[in-house]
């Protein structure tokens, strides 16, 4: 039984392997971009709005509201990054009901890549918000003695992000595989439904935690005033 879609190599050319993770990621990307472009190509600003447009507006405005609730002053600034994190993870997880599909988020490579993106985005957004010197000073606050601990916290929460998402999605896939071999009927369906819920929750948790990290780093003196939020891993 394949645990990770990374091991499912579909094409190989001069040592470069095109595995299922990348292919399914492309598939998810294509689906999202085409769907979005088709819907936004006929945007209405009048009285009557198509239900697809309404759905997209609800999704986008809800993401903006969530970003604002976490504490960002300008939700539009973080919307592309945080919104894409959530939409990509959620779409990738929800598509797991499609037979033959393996969610790319079930690959540790994908989750590590997303966590690395967050790891890089946090200082970038923070430096853009408050400047390089002010950002670097947060690592030596309240005292320079805290510098190693701050660095460890930075790395550990990135690893936690990656492993949390990977573990949850992969476990769902593995559990469904095991149940299919043990009890082919009924139970796998229940677990699939449960997997949909888990997938959505994981997408929400990943995006919100990323926004919390970015927001806490961007606010002046926040690191000294309040500790980083504790992880709510499953």
């Amino acid at each position, binding site marked *: 039984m394949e645990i990770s879609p990374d091991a499912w190599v579909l094409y190989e050319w001069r040592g470069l392997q095109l595995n299922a993770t990348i292919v399914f990621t492309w598939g998810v990307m294509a689906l999202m971009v085409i769907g979005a472009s088709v819907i936004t190509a006929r945007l209405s*600003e009048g009285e009557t709005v198509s239900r697809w447009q309404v759905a997209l507006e609800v999704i986008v405005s809800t993401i903006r509201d969530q970003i604002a609730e976490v504490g960002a002053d300008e939700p539009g600034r973080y919307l592309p990054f945080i919104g894409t994190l959530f939409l990509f993870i959620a779409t990738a997880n929800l598509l797991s009901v499609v037979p033959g599909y393996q969610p790319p988020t079930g690959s540790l490579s994908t989750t590590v890549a997303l966590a690395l993106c967050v790891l890089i985005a946090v200082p970038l957004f923070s430096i853009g918000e408050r400047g390089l010197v002010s950002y670097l000073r947060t690592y030596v606050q309240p005292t320079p003695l805290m510098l190693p601990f701050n660095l460890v916290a930075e790395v550990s929460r990135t690893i936690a992000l990656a492993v949390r998402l990977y573990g949850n999605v992969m476990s769902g896939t593995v559990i469904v595989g095991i149940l299919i071999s043990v009890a082919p009927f009924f139970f796998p369906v229940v677990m699939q439904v449960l997997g949909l819920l888990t997938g959505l929750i994981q997408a929400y948790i990943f995006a919100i935690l990323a926004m919390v990290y970015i927001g806490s780093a961007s606010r002046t003196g926040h690191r000294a005033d309040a500790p980083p939020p504790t992880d709510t891993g499953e």
Partner: protein
Amino acid sequence: MQIDWLTVAAQIVNFLVLVWLLQRFLYRPITEAMARREARIETRLSEAKEARAEVETEARRLREKQQELEASRDEVLRKARQEADELRTALEDGLRKEMEARRKTWEDHLEEERDAFAARLRQHAGHQVIDIVGRVLRDYAGTDIAGQVAGTFVERLADLDAEAREKLSDAARRADGRARVDSGVPLDPSARSRVTRAVNEQIAPDIEVAYGEDDALLIGVRLTIGEQTVEWSATRFLGRLEKTLDEVIEGSGRPRSGRAAATV
């Protein structure tokens, strides 16, 4: 649990591409569309507010105009009432004056009628008195009234004082010796000759005397020489009768003034 770092790099690239694509095809169009719609809704709301404010202003103006109209209506009513009161007062005054004038006219007319009645009554009563006196004199004294009148006149002429007699003599001279004697009752020739003789003896010896009758004298004689006149008549007896009659007429003409006025 294995990590394919090549896949990690590819996924990082994939994710960044996806961020760019979604920003291009999803976030920007949707947020812009929402912003435009909100702007348009805001515009329409502000337009509606302006229209409402305009309508409220118009309504306030109309209310004020209505209040002005009501106020002016009250003013017009007040003026109309005042004019009506003035007109009524003027009409009442006119009516009062007219009634006063009619009453005055009626009273004047009544006065004239009373005077005429009194004159007729006096004349009639005089004739009656003369008739009665004459009849009484004839029946009980055996003389006629004309002779008595002439006798009385002769006696009075004889009793005239010197000054009056002198005036009559002067008048007789200026009047070319003509005198006139009027009597209420016709004098017979003997009475006339007695009067003529008395005039010739007392006033002027050669004066001519003409005789005439005047009903107004009733019982009496009047001698006229030029502008001088000597008169004796029963008029003063009738004066009292006339006064009594006047009082009676006054009482019957104003019955509301009380019976006491009639008995005065």
